C-alpha cells in the first residue's frame, strides 16, 4: 500500500481477490509476517515491483499481487497485510487469515524480523498450525548483525521443522536462495512443522472435536482449536452443519481455553527464542532509546517534529529556484524551436495555437514549476519515513487524537494522506471501529497531499520568498503553518464530529514503534523519484495536456465579445473577491477537481491566455505573472488556505464513496472542507482589509 500506481488514484480502493487467482500452472506464494518486518521490500525485490515501503506498521491493508519467474516456473506472489496473530478480528488479520486458511497458497513465506524474533515466532507457530508448506524468511539480517544478535540457523530449522532462509531484502542479499527454497517447497518438499502442544485439557477437547471437522480447510486440528476457544467467527461458514458439541463438561469455558492456547504459543515462542538466539550485546537498544527519549520528550518532542518538517520545506524552497529557471529556459527554448518549424505554415493557425500555445506551453509550465520542488521534497520525506520517524509522530500526537475522541491510528492514516488522500482513505481500513473509521475518512482531506504540496511550495517560494524580509524563512514558515493548520483542523473537525453526528468514545489502541533503520540513501532517491515524483508529475502532465487544449479554446473562443474563460472568471469574481481571491483562482480549483496537480497549470493558462503572454517560465516569472494579475500577499495566503480547505479531488471522493458505501458521507466529506475554506478565506480577507493590510 502506498504511493504507486497500484495504490493511489483510481487503483486506491481496488480489492484484490482473497482467494487464489493464479493462472493455470502458476504457483501461488503467500507472503505473511508481522507488520514492519520488510515484507513489502521482499515483495518488491522478488517481483521487481514498486509496492510502497516505509518504516511504519500497517501500510499494507489489501493483498497486493505480483509475479516472478524462477527456473522456468511462474510464481504469483500475494503480499498479505502484516499481522501479529491470526486469531484476532481486525480487518488486516481477517484478510491475512482468510487467504492463508482458505486461499490454499502453494507456499507460505513468513517474513520475520531477525532483530525481534521472539515476537515474530508467535505468528510463525500459528501459521505452522495452518499449513505445512512454510518457508521462514529471516529478514533484516544486517540490522541483526549490527546489533550483535546471533541466530543459530540450523537450530531454528530443526526446532520449527521448516526451511529457514536468511535475507537482507533491502540489498537483495539471500533472495536467490529464498526463490530456490520456495520453488523446492512448491515442488513438494516434505516438511514436518512443529505443532504446539497444549495442556491436557485442551488436547482432550481437540481430540473430541476433530472428527467433526474432518476434511475441512485448513485442517481439523486448527478448526477444533478455534471452536474450543469459542472463536466461531474464525470458522469458514457459520452453517457448517455441525451440532455444537457438548463443551459443558468439567467446568469448561471457552475463555479459559483461549487463554491457555495463546499462553502456550507465546511460551513456546519464548522457549525456541531462548534456545536459538544469542544476544551478545544486551544494550543494543541503547542508542535507539536515547534518540527516542529526545524525539518524544516533553520539552522537545513537538518542537523537533516541527523543526524537521520546517527543514524539509526550507531545503525544498531554497533548492528549487535555480533548477526551475534552468528547466524553464530549456523548455521554452524548445518552444521557440518548435514554433520556428516550417510546416506550421501549411496548417491552420488555430492548430498551432492549440498544440504549441495551449498544450506544449502548459506542459512546460507544469514541469518547470512543479518538478524541482517535488524532486527535492519527496526524497526528503521518504528519508524520514524510511528512518522510522512516522510512528514517533503518531506517538507524540496520539494524546490529541484521543482528546478529539478519534482513533490513535488516525495519526498514521493522516500521515498517509500527506502522500495521497485517496490512499489515506483506503488506509483508514486499519481502524476497526466504524465510527472512528468514518471520522478518519472524512478528515483525511485536511492534510495536503502530494498533489497539493507543490501548489503550497510554489505559492510560498514564488510569492513569500522574494521581496519579503527573511524571504526564505517566511516561505518555510507559511508552508509549515499550513500543515499545522491542517493538522489542527483534522483534530478540531474530528472532535466536532464525535460530539455531533458521530458520537462515541475512542476505542483501544496499540502501536509498535519499530527500531530505527539506517536509510539507504541511494535507494530512497531512486524510489522516490520513480514512485512519487514522476508519478505525480505524470498525472499532472496527463491532465494538463488536454486541459491546456480546453483552456486555450476557452480563452480563444469568444461569445458576445468575451472569451468563455472571461465569462467563467467573471461569474466567480464576486465570491472570489469576497474570499480575498479572484474568479480565476476559484475556477482553477473547480477545474482541478479531477486532480489537484492541475490547479497551477489552469491558473497559468488562464492568466497567460487572457493577454499577458509569458515567454519564459520558472518561479520568478510565475511571480511576475501573478503580480500582473493583481495578486497581493493576501491572495497568495488565501490561495494556500484554499489549497488546504476545499473539496477532495474526484479520485478521493470516489474512493470515499466506495469505502463508506454511502453517498451521504461522501457529500459530508465534500461539504465540510469546502465550507471551511469559504469561511476561513472570507474571514482572513475581511480581517486583513479591516486592518488596512490589504487592498480590497
Amino acid at each position, binding site marked *: 500500500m502506498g504511493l504507486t500506481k497500484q495504490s493511489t488514484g483510481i487503483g486506491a480502493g481496488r480489492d484484490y481477490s482473497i482467494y487464489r487467482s493464479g493462472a493455470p500452472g502458476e504457483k501461488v506464494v503467500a507472503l505473511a509476517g508481522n507488520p514492519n518486518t520488510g515484507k513489502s521490500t521482499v515483495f518488491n525485490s522478488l517481483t521487481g515491483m514498486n509496492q510502497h515501503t516505509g518504516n511504519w506498521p500497517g501500510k499494507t491493508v489489501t493483498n497486493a499481487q505480483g509475479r516472478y519467474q524462477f527456473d522456468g516456473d511462474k510464481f504469483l506472489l500475494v503480499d498479505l497485510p502484516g499481522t*501479529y*496473530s491470526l*486469531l*484476532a*478480528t481486525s480487518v488486516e488479520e481477517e484478510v491475512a487469515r482468510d487467504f492463508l486458511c482458505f486461499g490454499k497458497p502453494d507456499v507460505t513465506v513468513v517474513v520475520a524480523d531477525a*532483530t*525481534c*524474533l*521472539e*515476537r515474530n515466532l*508467535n505468528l510463525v507457530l500459528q501459521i505452522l498450525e495452518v499449513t505445512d508448506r512454510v518457508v521462514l524468511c529471516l529478514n533484516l539480517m544486517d540490522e541483526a548483525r549490527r546489533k550483535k544478535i546471533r541466530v543459530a540457523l540450523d537450530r531454528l530449522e530443526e526446532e520449527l521443522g521448516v526451511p529457514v532462509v536468511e535475507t537482507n531484502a533491502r540489498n537483495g542479499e539471500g533472495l536467490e536462495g529464498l526463490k530456490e527454497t520456495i520453488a523446492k517447497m512448491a515442488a513438494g518438499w516434505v516438511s514436518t512443522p512443529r505443532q504446539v502442544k497444549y495442556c491436557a485439557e485442551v488436547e482432550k477437547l481437540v481430540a473430541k472435536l476433530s472428527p467433526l471437522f474432518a476434511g475441512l480447510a485448513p485442517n481439523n486440528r486448527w478448526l477444533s482449536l478455534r471452536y474450543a476457544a469459542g472463536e466461531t467467527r474464525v470458522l469458514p461458514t457459520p452453517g457448517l452443519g455441525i451440532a455444537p458439541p457438548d463443551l459443558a463438561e468439567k467446568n469448561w469455558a471457552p*475463555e479459559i481455553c*483461549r*487463554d491457555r492456547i*495463546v*499462553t502456550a504459543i*507465546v*511460551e513456546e*515462542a*519464548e522457549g525456541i527464542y531462548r534456545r536459538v538466539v544469542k544476544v551478545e550485546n544486551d544494550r543494543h*537498544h541503547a542508542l535507539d*532509546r536515547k534518540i*527516542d*527519549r529526545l524525539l*518524544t*520528550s*516533553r520539552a522537545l*518532542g*513537538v518542537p523537533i517534529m516541527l523543526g524537521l518538517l520546517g527543514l524539509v520545506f526550507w531545503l525544498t524552497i531554497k533548492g528549487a529556484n535555480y533548477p526551475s529557471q534552468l528547466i524553464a529556459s530549456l523548455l521554452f527554448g524548445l518552444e521557440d524551436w518548435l514554433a520556428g518549424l516550417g510546416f506550421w505554415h501549411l496548417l491552420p493557425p488555430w492548430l498551432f495555437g492549440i498544440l504549441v500555445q495551449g498544450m506544449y506551453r502548459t506542459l512546460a509550465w507544469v514541469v518547470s514549476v512543479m518538478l524541482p520542488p517535488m524532486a527535492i521534497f519527496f526524497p526528503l520525506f521518504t528519508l524520514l519515513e524510511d528512518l522510522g520517524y512516522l*510512528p514517533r509522530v*503518531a*506517538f*507524540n500526537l*496520539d*494524546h*490529541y487524537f*484521543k482528546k478529539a475522541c478519534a482513533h*490513535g491510528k488516525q495519526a498514521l492514516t493522516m500521515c498517509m494522506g500527506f502522500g495521497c488522500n485517496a490512499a489515506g482513505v483506503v488506509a483508514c481500513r486499519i481502524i476497526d471501529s466504524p465510527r472512528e473509521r468514518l471520522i478518519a475518512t472524512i478528515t483525511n482531506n485536511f492534510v495536503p497531499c502530494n498533489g497539493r504540496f507543490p501548489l503550497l511550495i510554489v505559492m510560498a517560494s514564488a510569492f513569500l520568498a522574494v521581496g519579503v524580509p527573511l524571504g526564505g524563512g517566511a516561505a518555510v514558515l507559511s508552508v509549515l503553518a499550513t500543515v499545522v493548520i491542517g493538522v489542527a483542523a483534522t483534530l478540531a473537525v474530528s472532535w466536532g464530529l464525535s460530539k455531533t453526528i458521530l458520537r462515541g468514545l475512542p476505542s*483501544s*489502541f*496499540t*502501536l*509498535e*514503534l*519499530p*527500531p530505527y533503520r539506517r536509510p539507504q540513501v541511494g535507494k530512497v532517491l531512486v524510489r522516490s523519484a520513480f514512485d512519487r515524483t514522476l508519478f505525480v508529475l505524470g498525472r499532472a502532465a496527463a491532465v494538463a495536456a488536454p486541459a491546456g487544449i480546453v483552456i486555450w479554446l476557452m480563452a480563444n473562443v469568444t461569445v458576445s465579445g468575451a472569451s468563455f474563460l472571461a465569462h467563467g472568471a467573471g461569474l466567480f469574481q464576486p465570491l472570489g473577491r469576497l474570499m480575498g481571491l479572484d474568479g480565476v483562482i476559484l475556477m482553477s480549483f473547480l477545474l482541478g477537481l479531477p486532480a489537484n496537480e492541475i490547479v497551477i497549470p489552469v491558473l497559468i493558462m488562464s492568466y497567460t491566455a487572457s493577454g499577458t503572454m509569458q515567454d519564459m517560465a520558472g518561479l520568478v516569472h510565475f511571480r511576475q505573472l501573478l503580480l500582473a494579475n493583481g495578486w497581493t500577499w493576501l491572495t497568495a495566503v488565501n490561495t494556500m488556505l484554499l489549497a488546504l480547505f476545499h473539496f477532495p479531488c474526484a479520485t478521493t471522493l470516489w474512493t470515499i464513496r466506495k469505502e463508506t458505501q454511502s453517498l451521504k458521507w461522501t457529500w459530508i466529506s465534500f461539504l465540510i472542507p469546502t465550507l471551511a475554506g469559504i469561511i476561513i478565506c472570507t474571514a482572513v480577507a475581511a480581517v486583513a482589509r479591516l486592518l488596512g493590510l490589504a487592498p480590497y
Partner: protein
Amino acid sequence: MNAKTMPLNCLPLGRVGVVRELLAGAEQQRRLLDLGLVKGTAVEAVLKSPAGDPKAFQIRGALIALRNGEARQVLVGLQ
C-alpha cells in the same frame, strides 16, 4: 511472592514489571495477549509521550505504545 502489584500505566520509566493479570474484556484481552502479554511476561516502561499518554513499553523485544486506558488493564508486579 509478596511483591507490590500495580497497573502497567503506573510503572515508573526504566522499571521492569511482571504481568500478573489482565483485566480487559475478551476482545481487548486478545489484543494484549497477541502482543505477548501473558502472565509472567517481563515488561519495561520505556517512553512517555510529550503529553504523558500514551506510554511505550518493551514487550518481548518490541517497543509497543499503549494508551493509559489499555495499560491500566494490565496488572504487573514489581520485583
